[in-house]
């Protein structure tokens, strides 16, 4: 079909999921949870992880139910041609919007820490072109890129934050459970959008070599991401304190600036960190952008997949430069979180429920 018939393995799916979920958003996550729940913020990460995991299971169930189809096809099968088509368009718009937001957040971080005077158009443009270059090769190279970049990304991140450990003061995590349950509940939903990315399975599902093992991929990827986020949030809280975390724009980045690398080779690790976040954003954009183009290709029945990659490029760029300043970007990412709630949770849930009620899919395929 489309570019190639290549299928991806389960381990490649895990890599694709983790690298898509792991995004620059993590840099702001400690501030976000600190603002909502103070020193209980790290609990939010766990709760949000569990919530996201639960919603990802819906997507997983859909993949298992329709192992041959993407969301575009089965939504039309389940709820009818016209509504399914409409849902497909929503999905495309959502993925395009999310890739635009990912690249925008990345450019904000770059402008804040590394390339202060570089126009953001340059950063966004080069990043998107790099991503489009990969897109043109199809699903298998994308998954393989994820597979290669995952260890390159994760191991240094852990190592980097571990160097902050000697100065960490874990009493900053106290008082424990000081936040009202209602705040925690609302905060959980608000935090959950940091775990978005698993919904690319709506499109990538049928490209798996063994879709029946999709749940394994989800257990592993969601568990890994939750632990990683928890680790970073705890380290940030313990290193600079909850109060400081609240006022910093990108606290997870700021603590890296305070780390002195062992051996004195580098004064600060922020350049290394930004190199890593470049990879993280790149893989996130890849996942979203690819899912969006794939959805469009399936929806229009287009033969030329590569052409669509190029068609979407200016649109992603234009959407990404809409926010006027970093704070505006933050507001827009919250909007993308809401959109994610609708697209990644509610719509799949409706489709799954309808398909169970109408007994479509499953054993037939």
């Amino acid at each position, binding site marked *: 079909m489309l570019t190639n018939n290549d299928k991806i*393995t389960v381990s*490649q799916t895990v890599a694709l999921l983790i690298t898509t979920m792991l995004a620059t958003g993590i840099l702001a996550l400690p501030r976000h949870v600190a603002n909502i729940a103070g020193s209980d913020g790290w609990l939010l990460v766990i709760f949000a992880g569990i919530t996201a995991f639960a919603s990802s299971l819906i997507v997983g169930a859909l993949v298992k139910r329709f192992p041959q189809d993407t969301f575009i096809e089965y939504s039309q099968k389940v709820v009818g041609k016209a509504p399914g088509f409409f849902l497909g368009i929503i999905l495309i718009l959502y993925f395009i919007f999310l890739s635009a937001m990912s690249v925008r957040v990345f450019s904000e971080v*770059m402008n804040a820490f*590394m*390339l202060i005077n*570089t126009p953001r158009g*340059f*950063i966004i443009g*080069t*990043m998107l072109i*790099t991503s489009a*270059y*990969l897109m043109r*090769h199809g699903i298998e*190279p994308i998954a*393989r*890129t994820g*597979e*290669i*970049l995952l260890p390159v990304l994760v191991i240094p991140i852990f190592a980097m934050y571990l160097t902050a450990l000697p100065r960490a003061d874990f009493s900053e995590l106290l008082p424990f459970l000081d936040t009202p349950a209602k705040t925690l509940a609302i905060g959980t939903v608000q935090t959950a959008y940091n775990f978005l990315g698993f919904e690319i399975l709506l499109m990538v599902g049928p490209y798996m070599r063994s879709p029946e093992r999709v749940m394994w991929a989800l257990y592993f990827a969601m568990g890994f991401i939750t632990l990683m986020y928890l680790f970073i949030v705890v380290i940030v809280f313990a290193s600079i304190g909850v109060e400081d975390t609240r006022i910093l724009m990108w606290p997870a980045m700021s603590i890296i600036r305070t780390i002195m690398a062992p051996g*004195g*080779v*580098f*004064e*600060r690790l*922020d*350049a290394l960190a*930004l*190199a890593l976040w*470049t*990879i993280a954003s*790149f893989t996130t954009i890849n996942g979203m952008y690819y899912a969006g183009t794939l959805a469009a290709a399936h929806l229009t029945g287009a033969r030329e997949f590569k052409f669509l990659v190029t068609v979407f490029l200016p649109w992603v760029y234009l959407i990404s430069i809409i926010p006027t300043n970093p704070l505006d970007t933050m507001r827009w990412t919250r909007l993308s979180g809401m959109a994610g709630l609708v697209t990644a949770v509610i719509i799949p849930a409706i489709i799954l429920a309808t398909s169970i009620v109408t007994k479509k899919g499953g054993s037939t395929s």
Partner: protein
Amino acid sequence: MTNVFSKLFSGKKRDIYFEMDISPDKNKKLKKNIKENEKQIHEYLYDCDDVITRDFYMGQMQKHEMALMYIDGMVNKNDVQEQIMKSLMLLCRNSPLEYTLGQNFFNMVKEGLLTAADVKEVDNFGEVVLGILSGDTILFIDKFEKALIISTRGWEKRGVQEPTTEAVIRGPRDGFTETYRVNIALIRRRIKDPNLKVKTIKLGRHTRTDVGVLFIQGVANPNIVDEVLKRLNTIDMAGVLESGYIEQMIEGDWLSPFPQLRRTERPDVVAAALMEGNVVIVTDNTPFVLLCPTTLLSLLQSPEDYYERWYIASMIRLLRFTAAFFAMTFPALYIAMTAFHPGMLPTDLALSIAATREGVPFSAVVEALVMVFSLEVLREAGVRLPGPIGQTIGIVGGLVVGEAAVRAGIVSPIMVIVVAVNAISSFAIPNYSLAIGFRLLTFIFIFLAALAGLYGVMLGLLWLTVHLVSLKSFGVHYLSPFVSFRFSEGKDFVVRGPMPSMEIRPGYTRPEDMDRINDRRHDNMEKAEDENADK
């Protein structure tokens, strides 16, 4: 995009070569009359003054007319005299020949009289002419529509010497030569297995170069063998002078800076590759043998990785990986650090760099470009010059240019160090083509670093990753086993595991037979224990 390029470069396809058959047809049969045959050959080879014809008569009655044809200098004259002429003219003069043998006379000559080892019967002009041109001697016998090709090939050739481009501390010292048969023999001597197959084809319309495809049946993946043969058969070019011609004709992605075939001068490397399921292409007239499929990892390996003990081999491998990274990015990282992110360096270091750069009129980028460029020129000059003068270049380059440039304040001493580390790193890569590819990328990385600092370097690395991930050599992932990593292959990867633990062959070629090493060291011990128990 490839299409556009090929359209740009190829122009109109010239069919003329296919019509102009430069060699006589295989369907053109030999005549009965020896003079007619000779005349015909001279028609094909007119104005070829190096073709020698020797007419002579044989037997007591001098009744049998015969003729020898060969090219002067391509044959071993001693062989022609001793093995052919002496046996035909002298040794059997007094033996009573049956003149009534008729058709059997030809066989008598072939099987009973000639003392040469390698004799082949042919009946057409095509093979005769090719035989003459290849250095064989042709024996015509009057009244027979057949001729004998007697292998007398022997020309001035270089002996088996130590390969200069792939020296090792430990390992065999013999290297391939320019002679096809010698090269095949060097490989055969190492693998005495009837499953080692040698398929010879001739490539090049003018050169008719012998090209051998070697593989071990039952190990090599048949898909790869077929793919190699298929691609070789599409080659239609005027001449094949070196295996590089073939490499460039059959590689998959010619826009890539990375070599997609491995070349080696060492028979032991070829033998090892054959046992990993590789297909080997041996080309006449060059000591460089091609191995395919190729992975990035195999290009970063040296035969010593397997001859040395595993700790040492693993350490050297890790060193090479680091070197490969620095060979690409070191000047770029320096530029990014100093020009864009000086805050990242420790204050003392930043200050000392700033102090050495004081008085240097150029930016770090220009400085780096000047130095890397002059280093490339020095390297190139060093390659061209004969040995003793080559060393002078080293002194001129290292001392005069480096030292003087620093003294004159054109470049900073730190930049000299950076470029030197970069160059040394690239020399640590065993494969020259790969090292050159990395040095080419150095320039691109310098530009990227000048454009956007570390972000530019990262972009470059991402592009590189994407390119490498999508690159394939004969259907095999260029980055395997980094992609689709399997733990069993991990023993021969970044680290080279202890020899007894490497039980399977590397999986990148999907070999048919995976067994590599069976660890039987404990068999005897167990047997001894059993015997002891019995007693």
